[in-house]
């Protein structure tokens, strides 16, 4: 893409910056500045000097919850990846047109359903007296007495996967659909099974898209407050709940911010993947 530029390049640069300045100002003032503030507050003691006491307190009280959060988000991300690969793979390689059409219609219903609604849906669906248990009992799969509530870490994972898998699937199926079909057809003609084609030929080519979708989901889930608050508010729970608690009950901003920063560290692990990948993409963009 070349610009329409016929005018003098320096003034155009000025115009460009002027056009972009308001958007940058909004993001800078209402996103970047509070983020920086979080780091300052978390490291500042009562008399204004540098301290690690808030982190010590955060670890003291919430190490379990930090690990719990990490485990939930990692398990959810892996499950989301598995579901997305399975569905997108069948959409791309499925040989039964009607099944593909049904699946395409089916999988994306939760796509834009907000987390807070997903939390409410699962709170009733997965409860001990919820529809899931009624169906399992009705179909004879479990005994009425062994019905149990899934409203613990499992409920959070189910809500996350239910809500995020369609998003990653949408991205992945889009990427798979834009692949060159020759390789796939050639492999199929040589007798390769579909699972093999998916693993050896399709997935390597859409790895980047899958990774981006999963990292975005990973980071998003780290920040979700409503789902753990509604499904599993008692300890051990996710760090977001602890942050809300420290603020609403103790007005303890330093420890809340220390917890937030620890969440950022968890996200940074994901961001390393993300930036490495988007760095490759950006070079590709510049070359266009």
């Amino acid at each position, binding site marked *: 893409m070349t610009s329409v530029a016929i005018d003098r390049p320096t003034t155009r640069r000025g115009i460009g910056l002027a056009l972009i300045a308001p958007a940058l100002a*909004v993001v800078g003032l209402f996103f970047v500045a*509070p983020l920086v503030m979080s780091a300052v507050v978390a490291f500042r003691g009562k008399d204004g000097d540098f301290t690690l006491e808030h982190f010590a307190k955060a670890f003291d009280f919430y190490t379990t919850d930090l690990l719990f959060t990490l485990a939930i988000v990692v398990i959810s991300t892996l499950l989301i990846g598995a579901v997305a690969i399975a569905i997108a793979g069948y959409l791309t390689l499925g040989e039964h047109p009607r099944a593909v059409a049904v699946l395409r219609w089916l999988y994306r219903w939760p796509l834009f359903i907000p987390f807070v609604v997903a939390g409410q849906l699962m709170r009733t669906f997965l409860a001990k007296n919820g529809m899931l248990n009624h169906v399992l009992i009705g179909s004879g799969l479990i005994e009425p007495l062994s019905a149990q509530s899934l409203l613990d870490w499992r409920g959070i994972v189910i809500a996350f996967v239910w809500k995020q898998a369609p998003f990653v699937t949408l991205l992945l199926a889009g990427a798979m659909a834009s692949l060159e079909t020759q390789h796939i057809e050639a492999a199929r003609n040589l007798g390769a099974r579909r699972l093999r084609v998916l693993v050896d030929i399709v997935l390597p080519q859409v790895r980047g898209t899958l990774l981006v979708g999963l990292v975005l989901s990973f980071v998003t889930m780290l920040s979700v407050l409503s789902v753990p608050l509604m499904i599993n508010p008692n300890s051990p729970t996710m760090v977001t709940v602890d942050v809300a608690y420290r603020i609403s009950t103790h007005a303890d901003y330093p420890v809340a911010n220390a917890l937030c920063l620890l969440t950022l560290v968890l996200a940074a692990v994901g961001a390393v993947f*993300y930036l490495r990948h988007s760095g490759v993409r950006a070079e590709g963009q510049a070359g266009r």
Partner: protein
Amino acid sequence: MSAMTLPSPMRALIRAVVLALLAFAIFGPLLNLLLWAFAERWYFPSKLPSDYGLTYWYRVFQPRGNALASLGTSIWIAVLTVLVSLAVAIPAGYALARLKLPWRGAILLVFLLPQAVPNLPVYVNIAQVFYQIGLNGTILGVVLVHASHGLVLAVWIASAAFASVDASLEEASRNLGASALTCFRTVTLPLAAPGLIASAIFVFLESLDEFTGTYFVGVPDVTTLPLLMFNATMGGNYQISSITALLLLIPSIGFMLVVERFLKADVLAMVGR
């Protein structure tokens, strides 16, 4: 693997069972919500409500009820968020798509942040600042928080929309004597309009559904629909919260059904840039 050797009726059965299970996983929770929304009475351990009715609907929609007020607040906030976001995102998107910019990479990185960084620290601290300057619990405060997140999506989509406009059309209009502004108003903007509308819908939905930011910044005076739903759920009032959830589902599912008209491959390719 072994599926290859299975007889075809068997494979058809497996296919049907898997699709049915998936359908249950997706629609089960939604169906459960519908039952709760119309249940008058539903006691443990009965499988289905013992009475159905609209009593709770009347309660939700009564003229002085909280729900209508919250719905109004939510829509008003979402509309303002779209206006603020697009007002700054359209020029920014145009500049990113068409003009030479210094520090382009750094600028793109800034516009990536709100989607790539957990938002919790931002909400926590912005709530504290807003509290000190009197913006906490105001519509403006909530709009600013929603917009700082929403405009990122709007910038991405708007810049894709502008990039996809054929530059030779703009050149033709300029050669015929149109000023830069006239050319933008009469050629570029109309051609990019579908993408811009798509970004407006995205921002609108995101604002309508937003919970965490409003939870911290909106208290105590701004109650949007998601907050009302949350409070009803935590209060154990499943009927009210289910009806409110249904209200929130309508735009979400409506958009899902038409999403492919907006989310063309070029926009999808944008994600993760």
